[in-house]
């Protein structure tokens, strides 16, 4: 009997629950529906290309070459922020592993006591006090965790996201703790870029009108309909108002240290106004915290790439650890190179740890079949 080994590469992120798609070896994380994101990219790149092709030569010659240079820099920054928002992990909270879920269930049951049959058990809520304010933590039935304060479950991505702001189809991703500042910078710089392009369009039209007359200038519009200046002036105009409005709204939220989700639910408005426990009661401090605060790690990234740093067990047997770029240098020499001797027949039932990283980041599942 000979054994036929069929090796199938199982990518680690395929094992992750939730409706995210991953690219570039797990470094890029987005929602499933990406159509509108491509539209956003197309609109930005398309409009800016038209500007660079039709307007910049004239402006560079007649006004200053600094104008297109600054436009290019602003454009690159906008694209960088858009990609950063779209591709980063918004702050997804991993789901509870079975033991943790059971542990929480037992705690809930102990807290509820005996519920007479026929009666619905009370809702799963934990109360915590933050800065003299009672905040209710809700239990997420999908992720089997009590959501941290400010976290919310996104039904589109099917994940709990920390400091959940909203799910933005334009960037094809949720906006949460980790990528909110990139999202804000994206809206801000896109507003600036739109205003800049629109303003210089007007300048261009005015300057040409001075030379050739207004009506002639409109007739001579380069390009053919619909890809001509008038169309994209119109696109600019509408984009401008929506972007400036959105930026203004988020600036207001940042100054109060609130999320869109909280604002929509009215958590800290109306009779609760002024009781936001997360606010520092100081606009500058709120802005600094949101925009210049620490860069939080992506726990999803860690579950895909990190090797466990846990030490050896009581019998001093070292678990097979594979060093990768995240292993501290002083740990690497002590990591035993021993591999497990063969496929395990009896996995300890409680060993439900997330898959460890190999340098190639792909787990290989070998299926041995006997002929």
């Amino acid at each position, binding site marked *: 009997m000979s054994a036929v080994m069929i090796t199938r590469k199982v990518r680690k992120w395929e094992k992750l629950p939730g409706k995210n798609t991953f690219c570039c070896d797990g470094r890029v994380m987005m929602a499933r529906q990406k159509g509108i994101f491509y539209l956003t990219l197309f609109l930005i790149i398309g409009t800016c290309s038209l500007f660079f092709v039709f307007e910049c030569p004239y402006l560079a010659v007649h006004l200053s070459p600094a104008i297109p240079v600054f436009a290019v820099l602003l454009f690159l920054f906008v694209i960088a922020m858009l990609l950063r928002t779209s591709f980063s992990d918004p702050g997804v909270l991993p789901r509870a592993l079975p*033991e943790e879920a059971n542990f929480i269930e037992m705690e809930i049951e102990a807290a509820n006591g005996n519920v007479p049959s026929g009666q619905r058990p009370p809702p799963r809520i934990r109360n915590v006090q933050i800065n003299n304010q009672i905040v209710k933590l809700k239990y997420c039935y999908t992720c089997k965790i009590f959501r941290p304060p400010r976290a919310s479950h996104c039904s589109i991505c099917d994940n709990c996201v920390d400091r959940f702001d909203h799910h933005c189809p334009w960037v094809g991703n949720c906006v949460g703790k980790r990528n909110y500042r990139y999202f804000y910078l994206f809206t801000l710089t896109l507003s600036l870029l739109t205003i800049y392009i629109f303003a210089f369009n007007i300048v261009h039209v005015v300057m040409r009108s001075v030379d050739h007359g207004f009506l002639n200038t409109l007739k001579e519009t380069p390009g053919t309909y619909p890809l001509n200046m008038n169309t994209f002036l119109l696109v600019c105009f509408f984009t401008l108002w929506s972007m400036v409005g959105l930026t203004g709204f988020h600036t207001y939220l940042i100054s109060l240290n609130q999320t869109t989700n909280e604002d929509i639910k009215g958590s800290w408005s109306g009779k609760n106004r002024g009781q936001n426990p997360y606010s520092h009661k100081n606009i500058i401090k709120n802005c600094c915290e949101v925009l*210049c605060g620490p860069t939080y790690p992506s726990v999803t990234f860690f579950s895909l790439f990190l090797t466990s740093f846990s030490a050896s067990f009581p019998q001093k047997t070292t678990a097979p650890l594979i060093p990768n770029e995240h292993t501290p240098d002083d740990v690497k020499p002590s990591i035993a190179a021993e*591999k497990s001797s063969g496929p395990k027949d009896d996995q*300890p039932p409680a*060993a439900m740890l997330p898959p*460890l990283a190999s340098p190639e980041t792909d787990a290989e599942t*070998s299926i041995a079949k006997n002929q």
Partner: protein
Amino acid sequence: MAETHSLQDLQQPAVSSKVFVQRDYSSGTICKFQTKFPSELESRMDKQQFEETMQSLNNLYAEAEKLGGKSYLEGCLACLTAYTIFLCMETHYEKVLKKIAKYIKDQNEKIYAPRGLLLTDPIERGLRVVEITIFEDRSIGSGR
């Protein structure tokens, strides 16, 4: 040859149970764990040792998330370079996470492993819980 990269070998003692130390949200959304001593560990170690470990962990996380001149400077510099600087530089948080990983490893080696316990780095659980695995009480030196 199949290589299953698993943390627990065949040689490991059986897992008796797991305790999960939850987050403490009383100071807001910063990463902080409860220091209350779980009753399941009463027979294995003393309260003070455990509280010391948790307090040190909390201090390390507080250092990572500290809002101050250094973090603002890092944020502004990163913004000016359109965050491309993080392609070559490690963030302050990541540096502290390495420190935390080393600390947990030390604690496991010195204190927890001899008592048949294992601390799991909270980053592996999404910074939600500190998982403490309680192994069956076997005499040390047995098993292979």
